[in-house]
């Protein structure tokens, strides 16, 4: 009998078959995402802190309310990429290599499109205010900038996993790399939603 079965027998477990709970790598990515998510929570909390301490209007210093359209499109694209990623993950769980490769590719392209729009957005916004204008500017650029950095890391992760998928590294039962990349990507998507709501929607309340 295998070592695992022997160990289970010796400690008298209640269930015969060995369970397959989450692996080390999965836990590692969960914890990494937890710490980075806390980073964004703190950044957004700082944004709201400064906002509630600012007695003049918000945005301050005569800066206009952030325009919604481009940011909405960006957020929608990235949210869609989250669903595509989920489809890719589901695909490999059922052993479908093509679904994985196509899904990863589409996610990557959607992420790239987001990045392009984010750069455009940054350039346009910078015509009205920059990080050096005031604290509002510093916060907006820092928050969106931090997100873009995390997104780029996500794109690199997707590219890596994509490369491994081409060499058939993943199977229905073994695809930890895909799970880890997917989890990170969902995190990047959720942070964008939070940024969109906080920086773009709530000033209009």
């Amino acid at each position: 009998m295998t070592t695992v079965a022997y160990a289970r027998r010796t400690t008298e477990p209640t269930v015969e078959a060995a369970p397959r709970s989450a692996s080390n790598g999965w836990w590692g990515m969960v914890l990494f995402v937890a710490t980075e998510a806390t980073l964004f929570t703190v950044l957004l909390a700082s944004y709201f802190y400064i906002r509630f301490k600012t007695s003049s209007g918000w945005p301050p210093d005569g800066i206009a309310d952030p325009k919604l359209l481009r940011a909405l499109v960006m957020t929608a694209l990235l949210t869609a990429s989250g669903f595509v990623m989920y489809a890719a993950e589901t695909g490999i769980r059922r052993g479908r290599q093509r679904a994985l490769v196509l899904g990863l590719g589409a996610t990557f392209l959607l992420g790239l499109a987001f990045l392009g729009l984010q750069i455009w957005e940054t350039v346009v916004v910078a015509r009205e205010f920059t990080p050096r204008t005031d604290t509002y500017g510093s916060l907006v650029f820092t928050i969106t900038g931090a997100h873009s950095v995390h997104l780029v890391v996500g794109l690199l992760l997707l590219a890596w996993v994509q490369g491994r998928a081409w060499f058939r590294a993943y199977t229905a039962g073994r695809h930890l790399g895909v799970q880890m990349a997917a989890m990170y990507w969902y995190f990047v998507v959720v942070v964008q939603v939070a940024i969109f709501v906080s920086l773009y929607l709530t000033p209009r309340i």
Partner: protein
Amino acid sequence: MEAHVERLEKVWAEPAGIVSFLTSVDHKRIGIRYLFTAFAFFIAAGIEAMVMRAQLARPGERLVSPETYDQLFSLHGTTMIFLFVTPMLSGFGNYCVPLMIGARDMAFPRLNALSYWVFLSSGLFIYASVPFGLAPNDGWFNYVPLSDKVFTPDKNIDFYTLGLIFITISTTAGAANFIVTIFKLRAPGMSINRMPLFCWAVLATSFAVIFALPSLTVANTMLELERNWGFHFFQPAHGGDPLLWQHLFWIFGHPDVYIIFLPAIGIVSSVVPVFSRRSIVGYEWLALATVLTGIVGFGVWVHHMFATGLPQISMTFFSAASFMIVIPSGIQIFAWLATMLTGRPVLKTPFLYVLGFVVVFVIGGLTGVMFAAVPFDQQATDSYFVVAHFHYVLFGGAVFPIFAGIHYWFPKMSGRMYHELAGQVSFWLVFVGFNLTFFPMHISGLLGMPRRVYTYPGGLGWDAYNLLSTIGSGVLAAGILVIALNVLWSLRRGPPALSDPWGGNTLEWSTSSPPPHFNFPVIPIVRSADPNWDVEDRRQDALRLERGELLLADGHQTLATTVLEGEAEDELHMPSESVWPFVLALSLSVVFFGLLMKLYGVAILGCILVAGAIAGWHRPQRELQDQ
């Protein structure tokens, strides 16, 4: 049986020399490195303190300039907290956790090595400031606007902010490693309510690290951007708020003191049952108190800001939370006392340091309760009374347990016994020296002496207490010197130690002193919370060795188990030696050097090197099992 052990030895053998030094991923070697490196920083910070005490021995002394004094007190605090006490406890965690849970290594051995190399690099980074007279000089919590560019134009503050962001990588990686190790690598049968309390402590600490460090990183990043890139976060003239720094810092800073305290009391929970010759009283209470302290620790940070003019309602809330947090500590103190009272105390050096811990930490905890009372805080904060308080809780709550741990695990780590009489002498010197140094500070604080002053006038009633403190610091230093000499001497000349010199209850005592590279020849089966006192189970381990069962000798292997019940579920193949952690730490140093010197090309080059090192690290190894 010898054939089985030989097979394990061959698989786990490490090459000799410098290559092995740079590529080892053995948690025991890494743990010992952490201990020595952290202790070296302890000595540095201690020397900084001695110079400060020499300066303050008499009123109007001019031994050092105020500029130098400001760097001394800032480096002292920063070093003690970030470069000594947390890494020292990481060192004990690194060494002891896999052994205590019956595993062969940490869950991520290369990440473990990376944590050490980054710790060393970031410590050297910060101390590189010293020869240039540019050491951090705005205290260990670095308030703005003083730390802004306009008031501190030189690089002192940049060494601080970048150095701390750098070391955060090490601490966070270590925390993730500990959590996964403790969750997944425990021996079969070690359900979560059977694991040693030291592991509960490391687990709670690691979760606190995951959620507390980002706040510090955000604060330091904002300050760097404000100092060097023209951003505005903390400047009222540009819509910012200096108190934002304080909130961000203390949202990290208060949990940080529990990040320091919890592993230390994990050591206490290890020593007390063994030296009371009985199992710990109130295991569930202690585990719960540990977790509660870690959680409630996130809800009290504003008590560092009671003098800043906040609304009374918020101060009252945080005051109530700060009073409440004493209760888990109370549970722990009385659980240990109950264990001692119903046991048979053995007065050897590790236990003496635990007794010292109880006395000193309780005093510190009581003055802590005083600070929860807002009006009293508003008189005593930023005075020598608070300096006394935090030294009592930090030195009492962490350093005494560290000294206990040094003597307790010395035989296991080195295979030799330390000199017991020297140990006892060191305890009394440290205990008397500590109290002589820090108790008088309560009084000078109440008499109105503020903190962080490089000198003071005579005639205010502070002189005698300052002189006593200075004398005490000499006695304390002597005690620490005895510890160091005891360790160094015993490493060479100490008598050989048994695998279990103390009659210990946890699994590290079931293997040899020092343990082989593979820790245990067979993975132990655990049936209670004191597995090394289960004599029959350990005999069964030996029988299994003869039969070659649970050997796991096909490479660097250990067993994965479920999180709560500890049921075996998988065989893990773990990496052996790798140079990538060292290379990655070096690459990160290039990035931070570039940022410090504002050579952004260098920083970008460093990032490319980092990406390369990560890629090299993840090149699929034949050894690694991709689950």
